[in-house]
């Protein structure tokens, strides 16, 4: 369970280009629920997701994970928590070129000290589940957009996180592939995970897979 308590994020504070990308947002996310964040480009969706996903620290307010304030933890502990609890699917996939699909999926498991055979087994299961079983040994630069997206999802799931965050998961896909990816995210929700996604793609909202839709504007939550 993740909670934001009046969280703000200001870039370049105190400088002439100071910019408040997220302003006093308070929110809670429960397991087994899919939250969709909509809003125009530049409204602060990605920034908010980075705060929820423990990728960045808020400039004000608190982030709580299972009731524990984590916003002030040192990098090492924050990273450990993120690794264990959160899977992040980036808008631009951010796969590591030159490595195989399997090696990419395994990357978040390497520093955990988890036995390699076990992680590998899990990665292959995930790739099968996502229809990429046959692609495991292919280098990632040979993948199509949809396959790259699913590889990124597999990587986000390798450490079995309770929270899965996807930033604009359909932005680079046609509507058929978008449906497929949204279906996968809905399945993850059905498995009991907390799923949070951002989008300005109408399809996401037309499909009605979200349990909750939040709207953002100028860094604030507005009524959906």
């Amino acid at each position, binding site marked *: 369970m993740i909670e934001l308590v009046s969280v703000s994020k200001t870039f370049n504070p105190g400088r002439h280009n100071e910019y408040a990308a997220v302003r006093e947002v308070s929110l809670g996310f429960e397991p087994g629920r899919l939250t969709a964040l909509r809003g125009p480009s530049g409204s602060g969706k*990605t920034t908010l997701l*980075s705060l929820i996903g423990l*990728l*960045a620290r808020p400039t004000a307010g608190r982030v709580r994970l299972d009731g524990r304030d984590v916003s002030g933890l040192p*990098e*090492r502990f924050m*990273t*450990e928590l*993120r*690794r264990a609890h959160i899977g*992040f699917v*980036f*808008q*631009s996939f*951010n*796969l*590591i*070129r*030159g*490595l*195989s699909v399997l*090696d990419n999926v395994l*990357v*978040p*498991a*390497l*520093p*955990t*000290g*988890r*036995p*390699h055979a076990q992680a590998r087994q899990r990665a292959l299961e995930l790739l099968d589940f996502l229809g990429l079983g046959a692609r495991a040994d292919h280098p990632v630069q040979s993948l199509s957009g949809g396959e790259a997206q699913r590889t990124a999802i597999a*990587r986000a799931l390798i*450490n079995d996180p309770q929270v899965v965050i996807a*930033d604009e998961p359909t932005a680079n896909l046609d509507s058929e592939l978008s449906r497929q990816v949204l279906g996968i995210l809905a399945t993850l929700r059905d498995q009991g995970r907390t799923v949070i996604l951002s989008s300005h793609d109408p399809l996401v909202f037309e499909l009605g897979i979200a349990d909750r839709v939040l709207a953002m504007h100028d860094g604030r939550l507005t009524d959906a």
Partner: protein
Amino acid sequence: MIPWLQRHLGLLDYTVAALARRKGRNAGLLAAYTLIVALLASLLLQGEALRATAEDLLAGAPEVVVQRLTAGRHDLMPAERLDALAGLRGVSRVEGRLWGYHFDAAIGANYTLLVPATDAPAPGTARVGAALARARGLAAGDVLSLRTYAGTPLAFRIAGILDEGGELVSADLMLVSEADFRALFNFPAGHYTDLALAVTNPAEVRRVAQKVLERLPDSRVILREEMRRTYASVFDWRQGLLLAVSVVALMAFALLAWDKAAGLSAEERREIGILKAVGWDSGDVMAMKLWEGLLVSLLAFLLGYVLAWVHVFHFDAAVFRPVLQGWSVLYPQFRLAPRVDVMQVATLFCLTVLPYVAATLVPVWRAATSDPDEVLRA
């Protein structure tokens, strides 16, 4: 297994996969690096072996050797001259030495024949060095036949093999009796190869040499001290060469490290950004890069050292042959004994492995400590 170990195995795994992406480039780098290590290690190994060998050689050498000169060339020493020097003040003993080289066409090698001052073999027998015995397949009791200068064969029963693995100097030695020596070389009676003088007080060696020249103006006096200096100057020269080659090698090495130390490519920075974003912390990134540096440099170090060993001790430092010219005039047939100096290995290690690892790590530091959300902005 311990998670700590698992973590490092995981990071090592990643490093190997990452290095494999640019096989050709990394193999080239490894090869160049290995060659530099091999070059430096060859110089060090050879220098050390030469130094040690020279000490061995000198340890058994007399303090003063007197040769007779005829038209500036080494000539036979008449025995009367022994008496001329016997009474010299400061000289405790004068001894006529009989030694020479015998070329064995069968194995294409020179033997050093010597009549020992004490405990000489009985006529008809010989004691030979281990290397010689190996080359001719001789064991005690076997017979070795040499061709005399008169063209007749002369047979020696091998009475013993000289101390295997001991004195390097004795490897190609053949000890024979005075009678056989003279018969073999048709060496005139009443003559010696040269004279060896033992001096009571080492400080008086120069004064003794002076006196010898006064009494026997047609001689050449060779002092052990001078031989030591000759070796030393060979070493000094080699030392200078070592320095020059080291500078070149280290510069080549700096060039190798340069593409790392110069900073990361955009691609590498992006990769580290991704690693941070998917849950690696700065320590994980640094540890992975440490493995990369260690993997490349330790491999190059080991390969380079082995290569140098083979080069110096199995191929007699073939690459440096021209450099050894001065040396081989002093000792025409001369093999280096393998020797390892721990300090030297450590020095070489510090000179090659550590800078490379540092060059790998330092530029990574900034990227490794970047914020994990940086990739979101790309």
